[in-house]
């Protein structure tokens, strides 16, 4: 089992590392690559857990993750980047350094919250949980500190990776595959929305005419 531990732990660490370095990135292309790496490792972790727990569900999850997250989504994201030529760096709401300090603080929070709370459970779960929680929080932090729509989406994606990481860590949790599929639906809508609404810059300024007319109408 120690191998299981260490491997799962290692993968979790890699995922967290990816999430953290996502926070430090300014260029979309690099972000997407990082995300791809994260997804790959996640699928690997899923397979590994499936093997460790002997769960078919988890293999399925890993497969879905591998195909869609690690291959299709990055491709489409790159497509968007090309289509809307978003090559230039993303503007940030706060200096990257600050956001990274915040990120460290968040990891601290996650550990503070989780580690003391799970004495009864297997240590694997505990540390996985701490890692997953930090990934989730880092993703949210990224969504709030980046102004670029795509960057925010990538933040959301990595949040969601954190969720799946937590899910596969749960011993014998039912519906894991279903959950990941449901989440994927969400993501799909997200990306499709970016396509449909032709979002260039932020969520909050859709590239659509007639916003002033809203103001005139009064709220």
């Amino acid at each position, binding site marked *: 089992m120690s191998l299981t531990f260490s491997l799962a732990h290692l993968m979790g660490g890699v995922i967290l590392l990816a999430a953290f370095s996502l926070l430090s990135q300014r260029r979309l292309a690099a972000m997407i690559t990082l995300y791809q790496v994260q997804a790959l490792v996640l699928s690997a972790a899923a397979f590994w857990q499936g093997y460790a727990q002997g769960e078919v569900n988890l293999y399925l999850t890993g497969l879905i993750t591998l195909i869609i997250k690690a291959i299709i989504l990055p491709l489409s994201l790159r497509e968007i980047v090309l289509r809307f030529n978003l090559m230039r760096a993303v503007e940030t709401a706060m200096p990257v350094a600050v956001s990274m300090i915040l990120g460290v603080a968040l990891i601290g929070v996650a550990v503070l919250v989780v580690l003391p709370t799970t004495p009864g459970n297997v240590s694997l779960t505990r540390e996985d949980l701490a890692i997953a929680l930090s990934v*989730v929080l880092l993703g949210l932090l990224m969504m709030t500190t980046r102004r670029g729509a795509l960057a925010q989406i990538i933040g959301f994606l990595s949040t969601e990776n954190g969720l799946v990481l937590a899910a596969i860590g749960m011993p014998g949790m039912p519906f894991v595959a279903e959950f990941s599929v449901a989440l994927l639906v969400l993501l799909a809508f997200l990306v499709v929305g970016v396509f449909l609404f032709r979002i260039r810059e932020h969520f909050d300024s859709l590239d*659509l005419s007639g916003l002033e007319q809203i103001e005139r109408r009064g709220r």
Partner: protein
Amino acid sequence: MNLALLPVVLAGLSVPFLGTLGTPQQGAVANAAVSLVVFLLTLLAFWGPGAGLLHADELGLVFGAVTGFAGFTTAVANIFYVRGAAVRLGVRRWRLYHVMCQIILGATLAGLYADNIGLLWAAMEAATIAATLAVSLPRTASALEAAWKYFILGGIGIALALFGTMLVYLAAQPALGPGLAAMSFAQLANAAPRMDGSLLTLAFVFLLFGYGTKAALAPLHGWLPDAYAEGPAPLTTSLSGLTLNVALLAILRFSHLLGANHASHGGAMAPGPFLILLGLVSIFLTGFSLSRRRDSRRFFGFSSIEHSGVAAFAFGIGGPVAIFGGLLHLLLHTLIKSALFQALIRAAALRGSTAPGHYAFSHLRGLAHTNKITALALGGCIFALTGLPPSGLFASEFIIVSQTIQREPLASLPLGLGLLICAVAILRNLGPLILAPAPHHAKPVKTARSTYLVLVHLALAFLLAFAMPPVLYGLLSAVAAGLS
């Protein structure tokens, strides 16, 4: 047999037909028919709550019945709405629209009946996505913006809720071990004392934020006002208002787990402070936001925030009576609010157009000069929101306030103040809306029959509050006692 399954399944089955056949009017009628059957089935479910993943406990039954009723009346009002607005959207959009109606209705019922926390989560996600699509239907700039807001914030909420759900599962491991048992409300409720308390608390925080986003508790409410104001009227207001209940009931159930664990020193924190805090913030934010609103749908969206805040506050106060009050408040608010939006749509129709953006108070001003009955119905609903007698909400708010004084005396002061501010802000708009001289272009119109449904709603709310049938009272108080 599991009769609770039927309405959900029926709503789901109707989707492909509604999505492919018929003109908008036919679609609306079919939608109404389906909703009627669903309503009857929700009543039928009392005789076969069933068991398993999707089975209705008393709480689910009561709220399911109210949801079915509101859904039905909304669908009826929707017929008239479509008749007036058919030209605005293409046929395919209308079909999509009616599909969304059924999906939201079905998802709401599923969420109410779900015994499995995972299923509950899935239902909420379905409802969210459907509602988002519905909001974006008009394709106006503001509608798309609202839909996008709704989607992002709702998505975050869903994600957090999922994390919380998994944490609950994990927290239940010591008690129930791996497998489905650890995800069933019934089992969890029994095993709550033996669960991992601190992990459960963590889970509760995430669930509170996840479902709290759906229930539009401040500061998680960002999506609601715009979504209410910009989407196609009946769907995004009356109907999706029903999903607020699901979220709040989910929060209630989870807070019950937490409370039970806390009571038996399982290491969990008491859920009260969290809920009370969010509730108060929502009430005050509403009270201050109401006074500058010009668009009536946004205005009443904010008032929905207030009322889910009140309910959350009541759940936070805890104790069978307060929870009873909170549940009663939810029921009455559902009846009144859906009726209010139906009346509002009627009123906008009387003034020419029901398209988003034609709901500014200045458009509707002086309704009494256009149509007495509609003015009476709308005015009655708005007045009922303030919780002054003879409005039914008076009973529930009275229960809540009195319980607050007995259990959390300090919290009663801000609560009273907040309710005061909100009520005054609402009443301030009521006078001009009904009695002021009408704009010159408005001329008297004869009453539409669907307006009387609103009055039925109001009467029901009144009777439910002040002449509650003993059976129902026993049922609800038993539920409240079970959840406290």
